[in-house]
């Protein structure tokens, strides 16, 4: 699996989404499943998938599907 596929899988499985839901409008608190509870589940899924540990600030700044590309790059995960 490529990094992009792993990233998408974490979103699809955590929030019960379809691949077509993954776009620039997918954002924290905009989708009913991506609330503060879903957020921590998604963080855990990404940490498992990539073997990384996000810092608290990055969890707070992880505001959208797209923003995650930039944040994960800090941890050496190219998407």
């Amino acid at each position, binding site marked *: 699996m490529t990094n992009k596929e792993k990233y998408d899988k974490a979103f699809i499985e955590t929030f019960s989404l379809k691949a077509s839901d993954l776009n620039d409008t997918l954002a924290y*608190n905009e989708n009913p499943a991506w*609330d*503060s*509870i879903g957020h*921590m589940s998604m963080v*855990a899924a990404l*940490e498992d998938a990539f073997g990384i*540990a*996000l*810092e*608290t*600030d990055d*969890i*707070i700044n992880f505001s959208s599907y797209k923003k995650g590309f930039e944040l994960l790059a800090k941890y050496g995960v190219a998407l």
Partner: protein
Amino acid sequence: MFAIDRIIDRPPFSLAQREKEELYAAALRELTRHHSKRCPPYRRILDTLDFDPDLAHRVENIPFIPVRLFKEYELASVARPQVFKTMTSSGTSGQAVSRIFLDRETAALQTKALAKITMDFIGAKRLPLLIIDTPSAVKDRSLFSARGAGILGFSMFGRNVTYALDDALRLDLATVEAFSAEHAGKDVLLFGFTYMIWEYFHKELARLKRRLGLGKGILIHGGGWKKLNDQAVDNNVFKHGLQNTCGIERVHNYYGLVEQTGSIFMECKAGVLHASIFSDVIIRRPDFSVCGAREAGLVQLISLLPLSYPGHSLLTEDAGEWLGQDDCSCGRLGKYFKINGRVQNAETRGCSDAYEPA
């Protein structure tokens, strides 16, 4: 909007009190005008007090409203479609609960403030987290109680989140001992509500004569002392007890209101509560004049975070005293204070007191 933009990225205990009060005079004027324009019941309160929000006022002269108004009235400064979450205090059955209307902006500010304050005490690195509560406390998403919000808020600082209690609030000893063994001698974080930690975690470990090896752990707890004070358990007894059962040395109590979620007051190693750049405290006499240092009175809390409801200046039902400013031995600037307990005859509340044994 607001002065909060100018301080949100500052270190949270970096403003000396004099500097802070200048900033707060301007910020509270803006906030009071904001809520006066958008929340008609709040405006009527200001009118009744003959308070003109368009004039400049000293911080101590900004009106405060009693927290119980949030139980009796629906006070919002945003239109209904902007409310995306309603938080409730976890009042016991039959008791009125506060209803706090959050828009996205206020909720985001709360998260950010909580993170900045807490990281000042525990660092930026996320630690293995043991939550002294049951996983069901956060399961029902439609019920966003103070207890669930606290657990979720503090989950940001943890990884490998583990719950110490089962759904019936029984200690899950196997899980807790496995957590303790896996992280023995390492930095870990424990979070929970004061009463629940004492009643369902500490007492049960003591009864079973088990001792956990969490010597490098940090315990953060809040929610109020009323039930424990009834059992003659105060902060010192609590700390000693947890040291005995868990080996834990670093314990931080925090104080805060569901009506001002996010801008909590955290206890430092000197054992006093600190106001961050996001909030402040004023102690008042029964005639509402302002108390001097070490003079016990009623606690008024100010927070710059509430934008979607008029909760920026509230009179609590707690008694306390401010102890000093800018000179705590821990090095944090701003006011520091202590809480003495509930005011006599005030209605019982406090989110850690939410659970009533049958």
